[in-house]
């Protein structure tokens, strides 16, 4: 049954017009006294049946033409494909709602997300009208799998009934824009799984989004997925919720401690970055910061060019050790979510440095320890090489680890070190007489995949050339020589007798992650750096005890080097992990002394509160995975001891700063990137103009084409019936008219 709109019902009465005209004409005979009846009777006798038939056909054609005009004006809708022309085919509306925080862009009175919700509400109201069965699925991007957990639709193939609009209204009212940077691809994959095989229903996928450039500029994966929709006869409607592009937006993209010694009572610095996502430069941007909930001050950024970022610092000083909550925020702009950035800094009483030494006298470590005492707040601890295998405290408790004059580090020790460095820790290796090059190359270097920066051959003496005045050591600019005035002069006072050589076949340039900071006179590397995971590794291929060189006693350069090295290698010490909204938080704790149940609270109030039992990971250790990180801010994990004494561990969740990039694609740009995909593009504010078409295929154009054909047929038929006045009959026998004899 065709769903027809109003004009059809009254328009069909016009079909009777040709019949009425015919009947009226039958009553209105003109009267002619005719002489040539003979020929008229011949014609009537010959054509009577055919004339009646043609008149009937012509009458039907004219009635059909009027019916087609009415149908074309009525714009009837076919439920779906012509194969189901007579059947009551159902339509499944699948609405994907982009609720990433870029949709919170303020468009004036409404946000882009409000526009999207209004469009969905209108769609929900319109799908009630058709008589065919309608079902509705509503899925938010932040609930479509990926890193945001499993697929959780708000409506899943919900049958549409009279109360559906109200249910839709209630649901939309409860939905708020998320703080995620959810992308559409997981949603498409989730939809593909939800839909399964086509059971003959009509399917329309609506994507209501802001179509940001960072997701849609090179949409190969998205396009492939959409093409699969198209191949499966799923109609695609892309609905853009942002018509006006290019609103300015600033975002704080990072907030972290600057490299340096951090301890209670010591002033140190927090560093933040502000990105300008707008199309024009911004000036005098104030950034406000607070510590532990108290306003700390503000920093003014003079100018940020369009598309660029600016990095600034502010000084902090906490008298008390422990975790401190630091917030930086910008003034309100188009998108609020990225105007705030959170950080938790675990400030120790002192900075613990672990000095692991392979020799019982620990000569190398002692020289380093002596140097560390020059700075307040650093607490070195010298341990034997076995400590790495069975640490009394987790290695992560130390800001830096120095492993000196080691012979062999067992497998557990190597793994512990690698895990520590990969997580952001720092390690300094110092070779010595006990060091065995083959073991280092085998266990620690491992063809470049291990911690140690270079393969070692064996100890060698640096040949002394009395005629050569070149200093034994050359250096490059590096943070370990920070604030070291007259560095070249001081380092020229170093004399090296022995060092660990690298194999002759090895080339430092073969590993791009490698950097040689200090070299010997003969070109051999002396101090080498390698990045491993999130951490850093330095290797000094000589001793610090003064056995192979005179560096510890050659002047202040050694102390300066050691004091610079600690903050350099402990750059991430005390900084909490950067979690993005939606990412799970994993918490490790010991059981005992803590009970297995941990209570979490976060900025989301009840929504983010949960009590979770930790699962046993290793002996005496438990692991908890907390997933309710849907809001940016500070979170607390409350660990309880049997004595009811509690310990709080803080962590932060921040928004993905890239989502604040409001550059988006216009409809034409999107079309060029998605070509030749078939889809419909609309703006959310005008979405209601096409809603009726969602209920079926509009047959208006089809009827118009048939009408043209019927009119042509009618004209031809009327012409063939002789119903047109012809030109005057020619009479070739009229000789007079020709002016000559017959």
């Amino acid at each position, binding site marked *: 049954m065709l769903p027809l709109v109003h004009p059809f019902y009254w328009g069909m009465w016009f079909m009777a017009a040709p019949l009425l005209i015919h009947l009226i004409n*039958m009553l209105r005979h003109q009267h002619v006294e005719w002489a*040539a009846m003979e020929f*008229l009777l*011949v014609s009537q006798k010959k054509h009577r049946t055919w004339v009646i038939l043609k008149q009937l056909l012509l009458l039907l054609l004219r009635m059909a033409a009027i019916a087609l005009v009415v149908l074309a004006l009525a714009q009837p809708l076919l439920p779906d494909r012509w194969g189901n022309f007579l059947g009551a085919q159902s339509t499944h509306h699948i609405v994907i709602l982009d609720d990433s925080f870029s949709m919170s862009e303020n468009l004036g009175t409404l946000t882009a997300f409000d526009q999207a919700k209004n469009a969905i509400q209108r769609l929900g109201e319109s799908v009630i009208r058709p008589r065919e069965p309608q079902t509705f699925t509503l899925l938010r991007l932040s609930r479509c799998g990926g890193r945001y957990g499993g697929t959780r639709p708000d409506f899943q193939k919900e049958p549409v009934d009279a109360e559906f609009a109200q249910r839709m209204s209630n649901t939309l009212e409860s939905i708020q824009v998320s703080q995620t940077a959810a992308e559409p691809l997981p949603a498409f994959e989730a939809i593909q799984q939800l839909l399964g095989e086509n059971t003959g229903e009509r399917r329309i996928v609506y994507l209501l989004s802001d179509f940001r450039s960072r997701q849609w500029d090179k949409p190969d994966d998205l396009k492939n997925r959409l093409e699969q929709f198209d191949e499966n006869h799923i109609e695609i409607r892309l609905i853009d919720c942002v018509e006006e592009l290019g609103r300015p937006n600033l975002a704080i993209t990072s907030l972290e401690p600057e490299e340096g010694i951090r301890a209670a009572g010591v002033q140190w610095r927090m560093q933040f970055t502000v990105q300008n996502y707008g199309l024009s430069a911004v000036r005098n941007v104030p950034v406000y910061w607070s510590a532990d909930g108290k306003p700390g001050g503000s920093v003014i950024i003079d100018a940020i060019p369009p598309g660029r970022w600016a990095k600034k610092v502010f000084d902090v000083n906490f008298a008390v050790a422990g975790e401190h909550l630091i917030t930086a925020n910008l003034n309100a702009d188009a998108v609020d979510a990225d105007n705030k950035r959170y950080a938790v800094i675990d400030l120790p009483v002192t900075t613990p440095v672990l000095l692991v030494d392979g020799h019982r006298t620990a000569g190398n470590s002692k020289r380093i320890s002596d140097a560390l005492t020059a700075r307040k707040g650093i607490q070195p601890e010298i341990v034997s090489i076995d400590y790495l295998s069975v640490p009394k405290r987790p290695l992560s408790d130390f800001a830096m680890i120095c492993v000196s004059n080691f012979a062999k580090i067992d497998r557990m020790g190597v793994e512990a070190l690698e895990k520590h460095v990969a997580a952001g820790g720092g390690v300094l290796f110092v070779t010595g007489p006990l060091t065995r090059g083959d073991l280092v190359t085998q266990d620690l270097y491992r063809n470049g995949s291990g911690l140690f920066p270079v393969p070692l051959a064996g100890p060698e003496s640096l040949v002394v050339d009395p005629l050569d005045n070149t200093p034994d050591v050359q250096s490059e600019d590096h943070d370990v020589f920070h604030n070291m005035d007259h560095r070249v002069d001081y380092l020229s006072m170093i004399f090296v007798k022995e060092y660990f050589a690298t194999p002759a076949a090895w080339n430092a340039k073969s590993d791009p992650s490698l950097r040689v900071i200090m070299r010997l006179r003969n070109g051999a590397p002396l101090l080498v750096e390698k990045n491993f995971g999130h951490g850093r590794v330095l290797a000094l291929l000589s001793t610090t005890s003064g056995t192979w060189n005179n560096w510890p006693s050659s002047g202040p350069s050694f102390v300066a080097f050691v004091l610079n090295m600690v903050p350099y290698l402990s750059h991430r010490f005390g900084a909490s992990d950067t979690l993005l909204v939606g990412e799970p938080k994993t918490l490790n704790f010991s059981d005992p002394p803590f009970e297995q149940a941990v209570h979490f609270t976060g900025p989301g109030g009840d929504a983010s509160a949960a009590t979770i039992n930790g699962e046993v990971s290793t002996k005496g250790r438990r692991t908890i995975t907390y997933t309710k990180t849907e809001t940016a801010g500070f979170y607390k994990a409350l660990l309880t001891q049997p004595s009811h004494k509690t310990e709080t561990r803080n962590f932060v969740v921040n928004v993905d700063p890239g989502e604040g990039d409001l550059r988006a694609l216009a409809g034409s740009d999107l079309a060029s990137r998605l070509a030749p995909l078939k889809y419909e593009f609309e703006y959310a504010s005008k979405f209601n103009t096409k809603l009726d078409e969602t209920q079926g295929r509009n047959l208006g154009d089809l009827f118009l084409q048939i009408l043209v054909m019927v009119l042509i047929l009618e004209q031809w038929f009327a012409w063939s*019936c002789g119903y*047109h006045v012809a030109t005057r009959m020619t009479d070739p026998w009229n000789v*007079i008219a020709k*002016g000559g004899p017959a």
Partner: protein
Amino acid sequence: MRDSKRFLHPDAIKRITRLEMRARHVVEGFLAGMHRSPYFGQSIEFRQHREYTFGDDPRHIDWKLWAKQDRYYVKQFEEDTNLRATLLVDVSGSMRYGRGAMNKFEYGATIACSLAYLLLRQQDSVGCVSFDEKVRMIVPLRAKRNHLESIVQALEVSSPRDKTDLYPILREVAETFPRRGMMILVSDLFSPRDGLFRGLKLLRSRGHDVMVFHLLDDDELDFPFTGPTRFEGLEMPDIVRCNPRALREGYLKAMQTYLEEVRRGCTRNNVDYVLLRTSQPLDAALAAFLSNRLGMHHRNRT
């Protein structure tokens, strides 16, 4: 020529009430439009020489030419006898049809009178027969100028009747006018074709030159009617209710077949046939007549 013809159009002629005046107007207008008449002259007018053959009248030998060339030639003249023309005018009911300036009867009567006037003007003898289902009136052959009035009276028929078969009419005419002459039939010929052709054949067998002016109205030739129409026969009792456009093609086809049949029948019987529309200028009949006469001259001489 064109200006004079403007006044010979049925619309103009219709304004002249009296038939004699119409005829005069038509003929004078026709002649005035011609610079020179090549068709007739005095009967003593010389035309050409021809070598004498056996049977020629010796009185026509040109002796002066014989004296110069010692050969016999006879002189030929344009005309040397009076024409006896009889106008056979159809006054039946079907001739009353016409939606233009003149109906077929008025048109036919006008051209009949015009021909009579023309013939009397050149001192030929003219007779007239009006007929419908039978001969209504016979006007004998006369060459007097005032004879036109008698012909006009014969054409003024008050109550036309149906026409049946033309053969009895033409047979009666042939018997009434036994001497060879010219028979000019003015009719719409809506009668059985067999009778028509038999009658024409009879006239030709009696030595008459026969000329047929077939009068038809524009409507009868074009059938331009639209809309539901009730056709009632003028001579037949039949009534046809129809949409004329639906029957037009068949009608026109039947009409063409009929016209073709008439034309072939006339040609077969050596009868000059002229189809005239009642919307045509009235001098068309005179022109056809004179053309026909010239043709007869040539036929007679050769």
